[in-house]
């Protein structure tokens, strides 16, 4: 081309200034990709219009930076932005404010004109999705659901592991508070977030990061339920020495002695408890702690009370103390340890929570043929989760609604339960309608055993000398989980009353942070960095418009197989099902 001038980086700016003094007009800038370097061509038009152009040419090595000429020729801004975006040349100092007059900000991202929408969205462009916000443990749900949809379960597991130590357990027993707010729940088809978690755990492995340098600090954790185990998992990874003290002969807390094996196979529970052990936590079973002083004297620097809520509440009925009237937790515990009592054929379960359902289903599995649940209100008010109720009914549990027990009478070997029918009245303090007895509707039920499952409360030894509140829960600071005693923290059911595993994980994570701070650490949970891109291909993004929107149905055992023993009822998703389900997610986190 005629009138070409080749310049080096040093000559470049003076040459541009020279063009300005000649009052040449900038035409545009072209860029050529010469494999190992770029060539920039600045096309200038001399003052007199019909003259041929002058081309200023400069070579830029790849990875090198190049100065912008916008402070000399403001009109270059668009072309420079375009070249920067399309060719990846770092052009520095593009001033979009046209000498401070026209545009508001420098390097404003909006003015990145013609930028092709990035195929990989960065974390900065993500938004909190409803599901993720609802997860007590703060799992990045949309991200892992998406990864499963892209058939990358190992990455998905790594994402889950960033917020949660026990995906295997939670993938089975979590009440999934994330599913209710899912945007697809409006059509009653929320993403099966929990099942996907289980899929990720069952089908891949996760490499744990090794613990940090020892800090020389010792922490005692009382109780080996999810709260205690979570705290132990993080604390050992932070380098503290951790001992879990457990009263029962086996670790796991309510997950071992409450949740029945047909929902949480003991193999999975053991695997995840073993993980905590492998990381270096000591678990001493059959060690009941009755005094905190002794622990401090034994050289522990901090204590976490995670003793759960194991004391069954009393119904306050006549005849309640008979040996054929069992307390739900006691019953489940003895079944868990293989010492279940002979119940007989007909069993009545009193209560409407998840524990009651578990007791009823367990009773079926231990030989009872006729299991009836009695609940004061109607199905709509039942605290147990809908799917659990459904499962119980499929397995053959009868549920008698609007019935309250009055009296228990024992005659020879039969137990007679006298109950009264109820009707719903005005809402009470909890917002649910208050049941009122219908006088004269008393009736009697002959059974062989009764299981009372009307709730549990924490049972903290008096000697711990901790301030307690309503229903015997330990009072803690909502943020730090610190109790009224210095160096003593609490987490799990013991502070909330009976709740859930994932709530226990949440409070335990909070407690861990403050224990670490208390011991002089930074209070940062040891979460590995992940190098996972948020959007891997255009196709995945388009696919969501081209699929049907049916929630997966978890394959289950047949009823006969279920009642034969304690085999796990849910069989897990196949890869095909999981991927399809993951694709169903709308990726609310990527929307504006």
């Amino acid at each position, binding site marked *: 081309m005629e009138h070409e001038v080749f310049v080096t980086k040093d000559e470049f700016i003076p040459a541009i200034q020279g063009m300005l003094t000649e009052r040449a007009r900038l035409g545009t800038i072209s860029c050529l990709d010469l494999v190992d370097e770029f060539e920039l061509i600045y096309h200038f038009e001399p003052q007199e219009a019909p003259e041929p152009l002058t081309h200023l040419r400069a070579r830029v090595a790849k990875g090198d930076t190049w100065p912008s000429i916008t402070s000399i020729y403001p009109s270059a801004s668009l072309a420079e932005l375009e070249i920067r975006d399309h060719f990846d040349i770092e052009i520095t100092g593009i001033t979009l404010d046209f000498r401070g007059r026209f545009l508001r900000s420098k390097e404003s991202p909006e003015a990145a004109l013609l930028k*092709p*929408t990035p*195929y990989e969205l960065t974390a900065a462009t993500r938004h909190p999705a409803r599901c993720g916000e609802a997860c007590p443990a703060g799992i990045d749900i949309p991200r892992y659901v998406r990864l499963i949809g892209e058939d990358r379960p190992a990455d998905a597991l790594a994402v889950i592991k960033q917020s949660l130590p026990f995906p295997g357990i939670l993938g089975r027993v979590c009440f999934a508070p994330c599913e209710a707010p899912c945007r697809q729940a409006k059509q009653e088809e929320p993403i099966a977030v929990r099942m996907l978690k289980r899929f990720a755990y069952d089908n891949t492995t996760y490499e744990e990061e090794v613990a940090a340098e020892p800090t020389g600090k010792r922490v005692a954790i009382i109780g080996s339920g999810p709260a205690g185990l979570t705290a132990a998992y993080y604390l050992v990874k932070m380098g503290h020495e951790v001992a879990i003290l457990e009263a029962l002969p086996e670790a796991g807390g309510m997950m071992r002695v409450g949740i029945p094996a047909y929902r949480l196979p003991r193999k999975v529970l053991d695997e995840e408890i073993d993980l905590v052990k492998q990381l270096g936590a000591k678990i001493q079973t059959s060690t009941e702690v009755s005094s905190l002083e002794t622990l401090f004297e034994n050289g522990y620097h901090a204590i976490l009370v995670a003793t759960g809520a194991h004391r069954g509440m009393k119904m306050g009925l006549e005849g309640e103390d008979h040996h054929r009237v069992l307390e739900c937790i006691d019953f489940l515990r003895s079944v868990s340890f293989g010492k279940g009592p002979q119940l007989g054929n007909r069993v009545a379960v009193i209560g409407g929570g998840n524990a009651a359902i578990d007791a009823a289903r367990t009773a079926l599995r231990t030989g009872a043929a006729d299991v009836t649940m009695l609940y004061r209100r109607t199905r709509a008010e039942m605290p147990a989760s809908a799917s659990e109720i459904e499962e119980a009914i499929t397995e053959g549990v009868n549920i008698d609604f609007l019935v309250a027990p009055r009296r228990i009478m024992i005659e020879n070997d039969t137990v007679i339960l006298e109950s009264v029918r109820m009707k719903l009245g005005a809402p009470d303090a909890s917002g649910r309608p208050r049941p009122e007895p219908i006088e004269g509707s008393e009736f009697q039920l002959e059974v062989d055993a009764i299981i009372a499952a009307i709730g549990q409360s924490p049972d903290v030894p008096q000697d711990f000398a901790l301030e307690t509140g309503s229903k015997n829960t330990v009072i803690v600071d909502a943020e730090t989980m610190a109790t009224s005693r210095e160096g003593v923290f609490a987490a799990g059911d013991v502070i909330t009353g009976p709740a859930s595993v994932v709530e226990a994980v949440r409070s335990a994570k909070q407690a861990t942070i403050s224990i670490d701070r208390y011991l002089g650490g930074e209070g940062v949970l040891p979460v590995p960095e992940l190098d996972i891109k948020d959007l891997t291909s*255009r196709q995945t993004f*388009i696919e969501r*418009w081209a699929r049907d929107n049916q929630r997966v149905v978890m394959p289950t055992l047949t009823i006969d197989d279920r009642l034969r023993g304690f085999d796990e009822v849910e069989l897990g998703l196949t890869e095909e099902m999981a991927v399809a389900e993951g694709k169903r997610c709308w990726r609310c986190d990527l929307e*504006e």
Partner: protein
Amino acid sequence: MDILTRSRTKSPWLLHYSCGSCNGCDIEILAALTPLYDVERFGIVNMGNPKHADVLLVTGPANWRNYRVLRNIYDQMPEPKLVVVVGVCGSTGGVFDKCPNTLGGIDTVIPVDVYIPGCAARPEAIIDGVVLALGKLEAYGT
């Protein structure tokens, strides 16, 4: 036919959105509104507001930047709504087939009811397509 369907089919309101088109079809859509073709005689009115529109006329292929805008517009339109794609490139990607920033036809982003071929589509074809779409609108009402 109830009054709503009747007014919808007798006087459908259009909304025009240009994705990555070359403008060819866009100006032909405008040409259809002007004296020679004058679609207003069919009661067709061009609206600027998605919330008032019954028929969305889209030109050009969807791309990585505008598909969200397009979907947004589509979502804002009240039911029953129809999408009419004008031009080959909006129908399939057309001449912009190998362009790196395009996603292909509009139907990769939103459901499409009528495809009007032509590059650029002639105003007669556009009118035809819209009238064809009206048949669908009518079917909604019965």
